């Protein structure tokens, strides 16, 4: 049995009434999956992720997290299950020290301080930045900030992790570290990105968005190697599939 963790049914959403950004989105995501949400700039990938955590409200249709509808009354319950990693790490990290930022969520959930410390240590370990524990955030590089911002939600022990363009502005080495870290994380992951190489390396399932609709939902390798499909929707084959001419 594969328990369903996120389900969206006929979800339509618009910022301004006249032009809906997302139209009739329906999909289900199961435990331990890793789903790549791809599409050209501005198709609404971030919007879709924000709907799941309730940062965008007023949608039509139904969104459920583990069977609980995502509506205002349930936010405390649903948000506890989801970790959302912002595209911009500077928005995620707002305390002065890494440790305090990682401890922010567990302290909010009133865990005793020894447990907080345990979770912080574990989260730092999972993203391999133990050495940054006491570092001042403004002194960190972009790659370190990204890893730290992923760690900030790991201390919540979420069932679902949503990542918005995680590989943006990372150099190749940091990008590889990120992919390695993502592959080791166990919960359901949904990664919104147009970095198709990273999606290929992390996600077994891919959802292709275009014009507000789900165009394709299926096996990652298959969709990512379909040149015509990708090009028809403003994307390009992952670099590693483009074949280097010799």
């Amino acid at each position, binding site marked *: 049995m594969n328990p369903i963790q996120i389900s969206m049914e006929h979800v339509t959403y618009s910022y301004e009434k006249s032009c809906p950004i997302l139209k009739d989105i329906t999909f289900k995501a199961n435990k331990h999956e890793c789903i790549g949400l791809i599409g050209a700039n501005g198709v609404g990938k971030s919007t879709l992720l924000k709907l799941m*955590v309730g*940062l965008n409200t007023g949608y039509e249709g139904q969104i459920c997290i583990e069977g609980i509808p995502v509506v205002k009354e349930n936010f*405390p319950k649903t*948000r*506890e299950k*989801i*970790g*959302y990693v*912002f595209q*911009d790490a*500077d*928005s*995620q990290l*707002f*305390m*002065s*020290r890494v440790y*305090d930022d990682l*401890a*922010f*969520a567990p*302290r*909010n*959930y009133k865990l005793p*301080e020894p447990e*907080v410390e345990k979770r912080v240590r574990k989260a730092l370990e999972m993203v391999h930045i133990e050495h940054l524990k006491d570092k*001042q955030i*403004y002194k960190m590089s972009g790659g370190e900030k990204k890893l730290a911002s992923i760690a*900030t*939600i790991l201390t*919540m022990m979420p069932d679902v992790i949503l990542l918005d363009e995680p590989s943006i502005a990372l150099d190749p080495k940091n990008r590889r570290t990120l992919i390695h870290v993502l592959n080791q994380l166990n919960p359901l992951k949904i990664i919104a990105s147009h970095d198709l190489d990273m999606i290929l390396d992390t996600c077994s399932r891919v959802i292709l968005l275009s014009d507000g609709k789900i165009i394709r939902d299926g096996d990652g390798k298959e969709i990512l190697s379909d040149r015509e499909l990708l090009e028809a929707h403003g994307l390009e084959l992952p670099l590693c599939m483009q074949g280097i001419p010799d």
Partner: protein
Amino acid sequence: MSKLDNALCEIYHMDEIAEREQWLNHIHSLIKLVITVCFITVTVSFSKYDLAGVLRMGVYPIVVFIFGELSFRSALKRLKVILPVVCLIGVFNPFFDRQPIMEIGGIMVTAGVVSMLTLMVKGIYSVFASYLLIATTSIEKICYALRLLHVPAVIVTQILLAYRYISLLLEEASRMMQAYSLRAPNQKGVHFKVWGSLVGQLLLKSIDRANEVYESMLLRGYQGEFPYAAKGFFRVRDCVYLGVWFVIFFCLRVMI
């Protein structure tokens, strides 16, 4: 480095010295807050002609500067804007209060001059006392102490976020200034015609940023009360520190 970057560095630097491994930094924040408030109250309570009495209170800032291993020079540098303002407070007293009260080396000193000096010293001491509190206590800990004193959570969180948002605002401003100056290399400062749009942009961008930070707090379980690391216990050394200063303040105010 531009002025903005300087300001940012200052904020970061204050954060950093407040996090040093120094015994004064490890004193419970509530104790330091109480002592600071106490010091300011006692200092202000001296009569307006009691210059000698107020001067004696200088023991506190001097001792804390020395034992806290804080640089007096960089404190002066940071306070260079506020100190002159404080000194202006009593500047008109000599004109109103011309009654002579003593003579030093043949020069008549009027009551107005004495009260002006007293006011200045009171102001300067208060500024230094606040500086010493901030330099030895991180903003989170000060806010925690305020919460212990039952200052409403809304107000304390405001203080904390204002402090954080100032650095976001400065960062944003610094980025925009760099972008501007790179495209207007011959321009000194910002041409007044673009002030409006720069300020507008800055406002919008910082609102967006502040909003995103707030969202990220909400998503991590924030519900109106900032989670301070619960460091509830007072240790012996905290109490001793408090006691010693109370005794000293009392002596300086009443006994001498």
